[in-house]
């Protein structure tokens, strides 16, 4: 069945809304045809992942749109860029790359995107309504938007996201369609110890396990009711979307489309129930670390960007001590402002924490260029840091990250996992 466009959409495609909108419509309809969409859907907001510098091509595309006079037609936030404009942490980008990254950020701001520069826009005030259609990029933001907020978005790739924002249209397929949002497998955590389920460090691990099983499937996790917090769901989704192509997950009794198994699965029989065992968790957790070396050269947290709660927890765990290793806390300018309002920014920086805002240490070169070991409490950092930074990774709890950074050597507390 061919793609049906409204008269307005057809007019835009033929240039009657200007060349920027025509270009955006060509990319959107091209994608719609590839994905077998029968129509486009109006969207209420967008979150743009495409303003992060990966090479001159992205800058040139953003500038092409901006030069054509493109403006976003819906409220639109920006994911991270390659530069820290808010806290001024220096990157090691060479002059040409630095300039192109800055040009890219300016091009997207010129299109009236809000300069949120965060991968956790949902904690910076951008929270679309339940059931609304939106176009979001950035895999963790997509997972959170669909799963925790119950808004509907596919995993929008860089460049399609801005095209959707310019036209307020998206191809209608995939997770925009309610029937496609049902769970087809169950990950049962009910036999795990409550202490473990109640620990921050558990959530990226179970998220990784979920993502590995899911691929592009949608699943529901059971046995976590009463243990979830917003930051834990954030960590789960980020890990799941790194280990698999997860755009939507359900957690029984927690996420809005999963009050119970029957609702989340659409009442159909689900073919597979996986009972999570400690051995499965051990394997997933071991996979998050890439080295046996008992060494820590730097610590990075904040993928997704730290919330104000997470920054205050970091402050509490450091407890006035000095850090012996470089410690990077990646966050958004919204959280930096809240940290200042709480009067704790100076304390964190005096202890030795480097606040990285608007960007993060895995997407742009901030870490010292050494052959070292990076410790993190983020499943997403653990997944991407080796390829993007050259560091080996040790995965651990935030408390283990802090104790290791204070002492300068790897400190672990295995009791929780025993």
């Amino acid at each position: 069945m061919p793609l049906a466009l409204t008269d307005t959409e057809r007019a835009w495609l033929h240039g009657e809304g200007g060349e920027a909108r025509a270009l955006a419509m060509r990319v959107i309809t091209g994608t719609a045809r590839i994905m077998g969409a029968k129509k486009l859907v109006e969207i209420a907001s967008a979150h743009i992942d495409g303003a992060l510098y990966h090479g001159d091509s992205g800058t040139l595309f953003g500038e092409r749109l901006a030069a054509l006079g493109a403006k976003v037609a819906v409220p639109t936030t920006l994911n991270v860029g390659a530069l820290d404009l808010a806290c001024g942490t220096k990157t090691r980008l060479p002059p040409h790359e630095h300039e192109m990254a800055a040009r890219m950020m300016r091009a997207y701001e010129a299109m009236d995107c809000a300069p949120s520069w965060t991968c956790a826009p949902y904690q910076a005030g951008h929270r679309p309504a339940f059931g609304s259609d939106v176009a979001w990029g950035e895999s963790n933001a997509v997972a959170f938007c669909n799963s925790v907020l119950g808004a509907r978005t596919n995993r929008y790739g860089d460049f399609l996201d801005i095209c959707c924002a310019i036209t307020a249209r998206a191809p209608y397929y995939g997770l925009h369609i309610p029937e496609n949002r049902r769970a087809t497998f169950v990950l049962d955590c009910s036999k795990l110890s409550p202490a473990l389920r109640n620990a921050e460090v558990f959530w990226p691990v179970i998220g990784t396990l979920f993502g590995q099983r899911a691929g592009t499937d949608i699943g529901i996790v059971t046995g976590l009711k009463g243990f979830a917090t917003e930051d834990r769901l954030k960590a789960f989704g980020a890990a799941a979307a790194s280990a698999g192509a997860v755009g939507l997950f359900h957690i029984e009794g927690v996420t809005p489309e999963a009050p119970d198994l029957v609702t989340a699965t659409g009442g159909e029989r689900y073919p597979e129930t996986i009972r999570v065992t400690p051995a499965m968790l051990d394997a997933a957790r071991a996979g998050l670390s890439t080295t046996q070396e008992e060494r820590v050269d730097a610590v990075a947290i904040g993928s997704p960007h730290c919330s104000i709660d997470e920054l205050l927890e970091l402050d509490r765990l450091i407890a006035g001590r000095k850090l012996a290793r470089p410690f990077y806390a990646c966050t958004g300018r919204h959280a930096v402002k809240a940290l200042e309002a709480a009067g704790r920014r100076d304390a964190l920086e005096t202890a030795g924490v480097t606040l990285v805002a608007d960007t993060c240490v895995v997407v742009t070169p901030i870490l010292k260029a050494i052959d070292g070991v990076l410790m993190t409490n983020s499943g997403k950092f653990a997944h991407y840091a080796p390829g993007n930074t050259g560091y080996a990774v040790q995965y651990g709890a935030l408390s283990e990250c802090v104790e290791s950074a204070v002492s300068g050597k790897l400190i672990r507390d295995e009791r929780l996992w025993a």
Partner: protein
Amino acid sequence: MSAHRPKAHPILPGTAEGPLLRLTAPLSFWGGVDPKTGTIIQVRHPQCGTSITGTVLCLPATIGSSSSSAVLLELIRLGKAPAALVLAEPDAILLIGCLVAREMGWDAPPAFELAASSQHKLAAGPVALDRAGHFSPLRQA
């Protein structure tokens, strides 16, 4: 001759020639492929260190970041992209890279769909892909 060889379904039509590279595990281009060189850099990937440049690249599944389109676009601009993409299923994220490349006037690789189970039947070595999605082995010069 080619009667028993799998036929791929064209998604973004075109022809291609190059060594067949069948990924044995899913790969996210962002964080998985160096956009400057076309080398696989995801250390957990079994084919880490392999170059995808100029290959007829068969992907069994897609995972990971929504920036994979940006990495593919940069590979295309630098002439480091695969010669063709053969995907187990249409993947909007990756293929945006091809669509935008065409808007920018850069030469984008064609893309085809072929189930992972059929990808297994393809033998390694240089192959040609025609517009209809037929594979045929190329004799090495």
